[in-house]
């Protein structure tokens, strides 16, 4: 204050300066000094407040400390997440490697199961009686079923890891339907069903023929599997730049509450025993995924005990569509 009076220079901030003070019991504690100057009857007065700010300082320190702890935790979590992400990338790579190896390992013995059974049935290793031929037919059929499942699983894993390419080439959907008819003919005849195909003689498209075939074969195969009498019918036409196709049957149908599950199964194949009915899970899931890749849609209508109708649509020309990116 003396210096200020002489020089006009304030050495302390009058609005509050924190300094350490010594208590009369000898310990040090923080204080805040506030000065103010006032005129009373023409005399200059100085008022000073000395405030013990121990509690405020403690509170400030604790806020600062918890801030630091928070920042530290954020940094730790970030590092943990980064490490978890790296582990996931590595796991994904290992999963792909595992699938590639397993599919080779699974296919190799299947190769000989399918090969030797058909070789025996053709009589190349000597004549068979009728019953032996029949039983070998079961072995062969089961082997082919297993191979189809392995191929479906591989396709799914490829779609999920974004490694499934979509071909864009001209083809005729009418020939796709005809091929589906040919490949299901033995089963359809065996069950005494009728297969009706109603579509124009030619249905030119630009897209992925193999995937369209897979979808139609899957839906038609399901229809045949779940129909004991009557017919299975494939309809297809070009509508508003899209192929609009459906497979309807006079089969056992699907209960309304199961219909919902069917669509859940479309979205998620989670490994729980939540199967709508045998065999439906993987094939329909794959159909949905394949259609997603081709900017397509699928839906189902069904009446329990009366029949089902699966309808799907895909663009007639994939070149004219912004291709859906795999998830």
């Amino acid at each position, binding site marked *: 204050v003396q210096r200020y009076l002489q020089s006009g220079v304030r050495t302390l901030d009058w609005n509050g300066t924190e300094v350490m003070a010594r208590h009369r019991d000898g310990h040090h504690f923080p204080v805040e000094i506030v000065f103010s100057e006032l005129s009373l009857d023409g005399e200059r007065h100085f008022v000073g407040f000395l405030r013990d700010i121990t509690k405020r300082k403690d509170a400030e320190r604790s806020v600062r400390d918890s801030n630091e702890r928070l920042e530290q935790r954020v940094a730790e979590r970030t590092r943990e997440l980064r490490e978890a992400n790296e582990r996931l990338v590595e796991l994904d790579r290992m999963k792909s490697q595992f699938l590639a190896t397993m599919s080779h390992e699974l296919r*190799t013995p299947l190769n*000989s199961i399918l090969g030797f059974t*058909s*070789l025996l049935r*053709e009589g*190349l290793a000597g004549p068979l009686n009728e019953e032996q031929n029949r039983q070998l037919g079961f072995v062969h059929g089961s082997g082919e079923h297993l191979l189809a499942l392995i191929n479906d699983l591989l396709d799914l894993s490829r779609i999920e890891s974004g490694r499934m390419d979509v071909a864009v080439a001209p083809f005729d959907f009418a020939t796709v339907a005809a091929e589906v008819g040919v490949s299901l003919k033995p089963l359809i005849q065996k069950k005494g069903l009728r297969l009706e195909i109603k579509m124009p003689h030619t249905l030119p498209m630009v897209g992925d023929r193999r995937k369209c075939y897979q979808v139609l074969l899957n839906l038609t195969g399901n229809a045949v599997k779940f129909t004991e009498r009557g017919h299975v019918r494939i309809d297809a036409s070009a509508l508003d730049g899209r192929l609009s196709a459906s497979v309807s049957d006079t089969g056992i149908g699907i209960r309304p509450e199961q219909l919902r599950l069917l669509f859940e199964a479309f979205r998620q194949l989670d490994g729980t025993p939540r199967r709508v009915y045998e065999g439906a899970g993987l094939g329909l899931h794959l159909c949905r995924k394949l259609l997603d890749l081709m900017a397509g849609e699928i839906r189902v209508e069904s009446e329990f005990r009366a029949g089902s109708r699966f309808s799907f649509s895909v663009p007639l020309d994939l070149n004219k569509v912004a291709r859906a990116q795999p998830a």
Partner: protein
Amino acid sequence: LTEVVAMNGCVLLVEDNETNRYLARFLLEHGGFSVVTANNGLEAIESARAHKPDLILMDIQMPVMDGYEATTLLKADDTLKAIPVVALTAYAMPHERALAIGVGCAGHIEKPIDTRTFIVQVKAFLARSAHAPDADET
């Protein structure tokens, strides 16, 4: 056992799985081919030098040396490169085909092999290479 005269030519069958080798060999011999076999790509090259087969059927995934590497080496050898190599590839592995063609295979036969069409496919590859011989062959 039927005695079959090897009138269709000699096929080198390269396949690491013993059972599948037996199957393919059985079908080939039944189809009138004489057959020599190899367990892996390295053996295949030695066997190709020793037997000069008319056609090589090459599995892709094999230990020691895989089908890609073996075919690459066969195609780099002036005395062997004229022998057509046909890859045996899995149906669900489309990328294997492109790679096989890339290293110089004449084509592929899908596994699991179809016993009804296998011999027809092999004969078609032999006929194709006989009608369109390698330009380098003199």
